[in-house]
């Protein structure tokens, strides 16, 4: 039981975070809240990759003088990939906010049902 908890709790937390994001994206009515839920999903994916890169007994992936060997450093690849993913998520959030400004000016509302009602008028 103890081993199960120590091995899987972090994955369960990540799945919970991901599902909170999914639920918000599908269920919430307000488009800004949907965007925030999408960002929560992105954070869950980023944490999942970073967890996969960890090693027991490893330090940060910067070479310390005199310390050699593969087992002393954690995996640098997930860090390099997620570093760019964070900046790209910033840029896509900017584009999404521009779209929301468009929708707000065109229909005068950010709630989904209100927007659909005005679209059909």
């Amino acid at each position, binding site marked *: 039981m103890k081993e199960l908890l120590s091995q899987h709790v972090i994955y369960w937390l990540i799945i919970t975070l991901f599902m909170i994001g999914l639920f918000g994206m599908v269920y919430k009515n307000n488009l800004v809240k949907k965007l925030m839920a999408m960002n929560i999903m992105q954070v869950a994916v980023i944490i999942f990759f970073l967890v996969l890169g960890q090693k027991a007994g490893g330090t940060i992936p910067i070479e310390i003088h005199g310390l050699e060997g593969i087992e002393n450093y954690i995996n640098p690849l997930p860090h390099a990939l997620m570093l760019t993913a*964070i*900046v790209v998520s910033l*840029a896509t959030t*900017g584009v999404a906010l521009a779209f929301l400004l468009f929708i707000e000016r065109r229909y005068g509302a950010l709630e989904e049902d209100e927007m659909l009602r005005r679209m059909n008028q």
Partner: protein
Amino acid sequence: MNKEYDSIILSTAYRYFIPFIMIYGVYVLMNGEYSPGGGFQAGALLGIAIVLDKLVWGEKAILNISGATALILAGIGTFIYALIGVLTMVFKGNYLAYGVFPLAMTEVERHALGILGIEIGVTICVMATIIVIFDSLTRREE
């Protein structure tokens, strides 16, 4: 920019914060090969410094870079990156293989120089993109 955010404490405090944030950004860029850091983080720091300046001072900011200027800067940053790749091809190497520059240094040093060059390009691109997004989303209609 907005009178609601304008207060004497913020204006005075951020006036002294901004140079330190910018110096730290340049440090993170230049020391990125030896410590945590690199182009993306340095770009975020420099972009935040300019956004703070524009938030506090509005039109009177010293670094009042408009969205159009920042967009040109972002293009220049991406161009620097691609240009270094093309230069390595001019000297008969693979794309972005920095070992072929005809400079009087060892191959490892050429690689380090190439990494610094593309990180400068990335920094300019990220910094300018943050300013473009901020400026586009908050600009008042004339």
